């Protein structure tokens, strides 16, 4: 690792080579043709991000640089990066596709994904910044026993990260197969190799800037599409909706709640997972340690909420635009009159309908860049759970120097990246629809309760936190496995054992109840000490006095 520039250049050449050899390969093997503007713009994006990685690598010397970009990211930058982390290709293409197919129902998901942000701001953001260093486990274990708390936090973080990663990798492979005419496994390898490069060399600084650039590209592309749709209707919403109702096979039904939510239990359960899941996603929580202080942390949530909300308005217009401009055009339909590539391709087809092959190339490249940026953030969060929480804090009891921890985090990144590539290839033909839902459910049922109680509830003890965290994790996973999404759709049993798709309405109370019960019945001397330490934690969480970073200036 002595000459990162050389390594980067070599890897860049490798990736570019893969593209062109794949082009030759695809030309013989598949009917799909290489989309030249898309490949060109994607390579330009990769070149730019590799340059940023090189720049960031020279500024990444300490663990604070690696995990938290030195703590020098501004609130606005972090807000854009948070939005970038959150606006995955799945939410861009997925929600646009949902709106395309179901109209109003797509909006239900958008709203659910957004409302978690204000909650996080009101209850956690500042306190997280005031108490933490690199990972949310720093906060959860602030006054509790390091080894058990960090182990539990790292395990549930890794579950969340891996579920999310698999979903992104498989999505990337399939998308790139359609967009670039590149074989699935090549696409997964390219994504994996690039994310390993960004994270190992550039750490949080490179990941943040990749995220910011991607967020700007995605927001610009989506804005242009929405404006083009609105322009064709003279910026008259009534005209657009009227036309969509006329064209859509569902007609008036696209303007009203459909089949997505039918019983109140499922509705509340999904709502809980979305609302409290955001505040338990490790790659999101980690971003709060990249800013200077609580004020910047607050500002970053405000900026993120604004961009994400704006983005969802755009995806809604894009979905309706696709109903009007794509669904009736035979060029985008297969023999069965279905959208080529499925409903998730609605936004992609719309870009071609609006701006021809050039703009299709741009949106394709943006979609690829989006996946790349999101998987980098996830990998960094997973790697820090391994190197900072499991290795440095739990296994070595914090007795480890900067250099060793840095090396550990780079190995962890490499290992996670390779694992993601293997899993991405292994899950190619699996039904992975449940994975992001499960990630949110685990985040809301394992990470959020422990973090929330550690900050707010004086009587939480290590025993209670471990019981609550593990209980929430196990309940959420078990219920999802026994529900239709896994039991029937993946394992092909005829009927599901649990009738509800989303577990949060059960698994969240389980976590809180177990944490409460095993804390109040904990009479050990350690528990007494932990309760006594709450006071100092409380003062620091409220004022930020003694917070990481503040003392160094």
């Amino acid at each position, binding site marked *: 690792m002595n000459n990162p520039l050389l390594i980067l250049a070599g890897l860049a050449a490798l990736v570019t080579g893969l593209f062109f050899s794949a082009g030759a390969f695809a030309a013989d093997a598949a009917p799909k043709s290489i989309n030249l503007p898309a490949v060109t713009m994607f390579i330009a994006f990769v070149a730019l991000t590799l340059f940023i990685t090189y720049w960031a690598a020279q500024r990444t010397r300490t663990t604070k640089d690696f995990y938290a970009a030195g703590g020098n990211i501004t609130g606005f930058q972090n807000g854009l990066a948070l939005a970038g982390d959150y606006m995955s290709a799945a939410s861009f293409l997925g929600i646009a596709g949902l709106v395309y197919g179901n109209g109003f129902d797509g909006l239900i998901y958008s709203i659910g994904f957004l409302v978690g942000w204000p909650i996080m701001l009101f209850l956690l953001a500042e306190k997280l910044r005031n108490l933490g260093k690199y990972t949310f486990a720093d906060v959860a274990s602030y006054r509790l026993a390091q080894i058990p708390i960090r182990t539990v936090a790292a395990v549930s973080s890794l579950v969340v990260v891996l579920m999310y990663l698999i979903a992104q990798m498989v999505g990337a492979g399939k998308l790139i197969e359609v967009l670039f005419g590149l074989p699935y496994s090549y696409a997964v390898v390219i994504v994996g190799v690039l994310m390993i490069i960004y994270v190992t060399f550039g750490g949080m600084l490179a990941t943040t800037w990749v995220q910011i650039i991607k967020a700007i590209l995605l927001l610009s592309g989506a804005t242009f599409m929405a404006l083009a749709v609105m322009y064709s209707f003279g910026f008259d919403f009534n005209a657009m909706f009227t036309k969509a109702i006329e064209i859509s096979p569902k007609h008036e039904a696209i*303007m009203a709640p459909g089949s997505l939510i039918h019983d109140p239990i499922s509705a509340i359960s999904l709502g809980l997972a979305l609302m409290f899941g955001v505040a338990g996603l490790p790659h999101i929580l980690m971003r709060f340690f990249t800013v200077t202080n609580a004020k910047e942390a607050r500002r970053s949530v405000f900026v993120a909420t604004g961009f994400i909300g704006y983005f969802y308005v755009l995806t809604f217009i894009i979905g309706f635009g696709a109903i009007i401009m794509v669904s009736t055009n035979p060029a985008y339909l297969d023999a069965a009159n279905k959208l080529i590539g499925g409903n998730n391709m609605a936004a992609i087809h719309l870009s071609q309908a609006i701006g021809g092959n050039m703009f299709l190339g741009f949106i394709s490249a943006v979609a690829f860049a989006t996946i790349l940026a999101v998987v980098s953030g996830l990998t960094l969060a997973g790697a820090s759970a391994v190197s900072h929480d499991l290795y440095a804090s739990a296994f070595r009891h914090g007795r480890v120097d900067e250099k060793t921890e840095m090396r550990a985090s780079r190995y962890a990144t490499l290992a996670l990246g390779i694992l993601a590539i293997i899993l991405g290839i292994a899950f190619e033909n699996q039904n992975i629809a449940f994975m992001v839902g499960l990630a949110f459910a685990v985040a809301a049922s394992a990470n959020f309760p422990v973090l929330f109680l550690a900050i707010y509830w004086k009587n939480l003890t290590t025993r209670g936190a471990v019981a609550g965290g593990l209980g929430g994790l196990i309940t959420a996973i078990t219920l999802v496995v026994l529900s239709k999404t896994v039991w029937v759709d993946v394992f092909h049993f005829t009927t599901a054992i649990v009738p509800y798709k989303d577990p949060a309405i059960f698994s969240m109370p389980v976590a809180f109840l177990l944490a409460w019960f095993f804390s109040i019945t904990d009479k050990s001397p350690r528990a007494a000490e932990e309760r006594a330490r709450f*006071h100092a934690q409380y003062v620091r969480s409220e004022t930020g006095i003694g917070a990481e970073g503040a003392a160094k200036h």
Partner: protein
Amino acid sequence: MKSDFAERIANNPDFKELVRRRTGYGWMMAAVMIVVYFAFILAIAYFPSVLAIKITAGSPISWGILLGFLLLLFAFILTGLYVHKANTQFDELTDKIKESAL
């Protein structure tokens, strides 16, 4: 943080004032967001036909769509209100506490 130092801050009337006001405000805002969001979700579950009603006769836009967009806007406005209050009033108090403590 030494515990006697923490004790001194905790006994500072400004600290008590800060915690009381910010905690109250934060919880109130969170409660508002939770109630409004779940009211919307339950309306979808129980009264889908009401949300399908058009906002005016002849308009293609349903109440569901209008309320959905307003909810996105509402979430953003709530964060804005909180950040504004926190970055001015609450931070002023926090700075005062820090000055007197150091």
